[in-house]
Every structure is written in structure tokens, then in C-alpha cells.
């Protein structure tokens, strides 16, 4: 399974531990999507931080994705929901390590 497909799978399953493991030790996740709060950007560095962050968002913000579609080797789009606040988003694998882990991923409004 390609990294972008695996990313969609784990996020659909709300598997925060597996999500963190997709990234390199110092992997960088950047989310630029509006989410119904005053903070519209998240920059997370490191797989543990990414895992902890989504553990929180999956439960308290009911973060979910739907209508997912893998566009190509590096991109997928989906409707992201932050506790009922919907936004069309596109995730892009900006950098991948030689062993297939994500070094940098951006999620932007589409």
C-alpha cells in the first residue's frame, strides 16, 4: 500500500498510533485548514507529537474525514470535519524518506 493510501486508511480508522508511525522520527505535519477555532494552523514535529495531537482531536474535536479520494502518488483529497465544521482539504506528501516514511506532509484547503 502506498504511503498516501495508508495515510487515508489510518485517519479514516482514527488510529492515532498508526498515524504517528507513518512519519519519520522528526516528521512534520502542517495543517492549514480552518477548523472552527481561532487557530487555523497546526505544525507538528515528530511522530509522537502527531500521534498525541490526533488522539486529542479524534476524541474532543471528533475529527473525521469523509469522501476520500487518492489523486496520485502523493496527494489525496477529502472532506475534513472538525466537530461538524466541514472543509474540503487536500493532503500532499511533500517529502518521503527512503524507507517510505513521511518526512513532511501538508494539508491545505482545496
Amino acid at each position, binding site marked *: 500500500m502506498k504511503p498516501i493510501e495508508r495515510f487515508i486508511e489510518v485517519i479514516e480508522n482514527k488510529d492515532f498510533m498508526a498515524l504517528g508511525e507513518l512519519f519519520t522520527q522528526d516528521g512534520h505535519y502542517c495543517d492549514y485548514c480552518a477548523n472552527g*477555532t*481561532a*487557530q487555523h*494552523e*497546526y*505544525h*507538528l514535529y515528530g511522530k*509522537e*507529537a502527531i500521534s*498525541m*495531537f490526533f*488522539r*486529542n482531536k*479524534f*476524541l*474532543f474535536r471528533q475529527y473525521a474525514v469523509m469522501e476520500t479520494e487518492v489523486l496520485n502518488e502523493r496527494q489525496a483529497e477529502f472532506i475534513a470535519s472538525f466537530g461538524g465544521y466541514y472543509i474540503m482539504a487536500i493532503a500532499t506528501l511533500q517529502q518521503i524518506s527512503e524507507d517510505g516514511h513521511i518526512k513532511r506532509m501538508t494539508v491545505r484547503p482545496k
Partner: protein
Amino acid sequence: MGVYAVTGGSSGIGGKTVELLKKKGHEVINIDLRNCDIEANLASPEGRQKAVDELHQMHPEGLDGVICCAGVSGACGNLELIVSLNFFGTVAIVKGTYDLLKKKGGTCVVTTSNTISQGAARMDIADLLNNNNDNEQRILNVVSSMDGTNLSVGNSIYVATKYAVARWMRRHSASYAANGVRLNAVAPGNVNTAMTATMSANAKTALNALPIPTKYGKETLMDPEEIASVIVFLGSHEARGVNGNIMFVDGGTDALLNTEKVY
């Protein structure tokens, strides 16, 4: 050595604070419901006045510090108690001891919560507490009409009271400091207490979804001493340059969930 008054000093963060202050050689007056030096119910105006009066009788020469730890959680099931104790109980003690603190150039530390940065507060209630707090009963009447059995309602009121305490502290810190009294706050993460030790599986799941980076992989909460040691620092001469500060003592949860909030 100094004289410190601590509210809620019989257990939890307050209890550890009392212990650490005593270890440093300070005299400590514990204000709590029981097992303490001044028995007072800070949820009531009469109880607050009793505590303030007794402090004045015991130490008319002044106090070096007032530490406000007394409070209840959002899960206590009593919304009026959350408001009356967490907000009014804290503010009344600080105001009531201001003259004693001024006499000795003392300092005050109030306890808020790291949840104030997570967007869960009923900001309308926080605004009432900060901007229209001259009539406590009127605000208690508003919250008493809400569903106290609903945990998310309880949490939203709890966070509102903690937000209001933090904002009250910020608003007053400059004036207090100009009169020689420093005001600061700690914002603890979730702390191990007798209550959290026996909580339900659902409650535990919720707590673990507020990850504490310094406890990564351990599924544990903050130790009360981790918070108390920062309180003691803020109340000490070493922190004389710190005023109006809300110090998050949560192992990095706030930074994790609010990466872009630098100020």
C-alpha cells in the same frame, strides 16, 4: 522565613504546596473545609469573610503569600458550586488579603487550568464573571438553570470559571504589582488525585486524550508535586520578576494542542 496562606491545602495540589512551603521553613496557614488551620467554606460569602477575618486576626502584620488552590472539577455535578468556589472563592480571598499582602510586599498565586486554552469554556459565563460579578447570586441563578448532570456542561462551566480567574488575575496584576504585590497563575494539566484514581473508563479515555508529552507512553497524569513546586517558585523571591503570568504546568499539552500560539 515567610507566612503563607493556602486555600484547599488539605489535599491535592494545595496539600503538596503546604508541604513544600513548610519544608522551606515557612509558616503556612491552611484554609479548607477540614483538617486545616482555618475551617471555612469558600463557596459562600460568609465562609470567605470568615477566612479573611481570621487571617487578619492571626497576622495583622501582613502575609508574604496567598496561594489559592481550593476548587472543584467540572464533574462534581453542582454547577453553582463550581462557580461560587472556583471563581468567587478565589477572587474574594485575593481581594480580602490584598491589604495584608501589601504590608509585606507579598505575592499571590491563583490556580487556573490548562483547559482555558482549549476552547471549551462557556465564554458568556466567563464574561459575566469578569464583567458583571457584583451580584454573585444572579450568576448562580443563570448556571443553576443548566443541566448539571451533563458532564460536558459541567466542564464548560468549570473552564469558564478558570478562564475568568486567569483573566481577573491578568487584569489586576499591573495595579497590584505597582502596590508591591505580584499576581500570577498556574495552569495545571490533569493531575493525579483521589478522584482520578477511581474514575470511570470513559472518563479515563477522555483524560488520556489530553496527552501529556512529558508522560508520553505512560498513560499517567501530572503529579501534584510537579504543580506545587512551580507554585512555590512563583511565590518565592526568585520569581520577583514574574507578574501577570499564566504558567502552564501541563507537561506540554498546551504547546501540543496550540502550536502556533506564541503569545
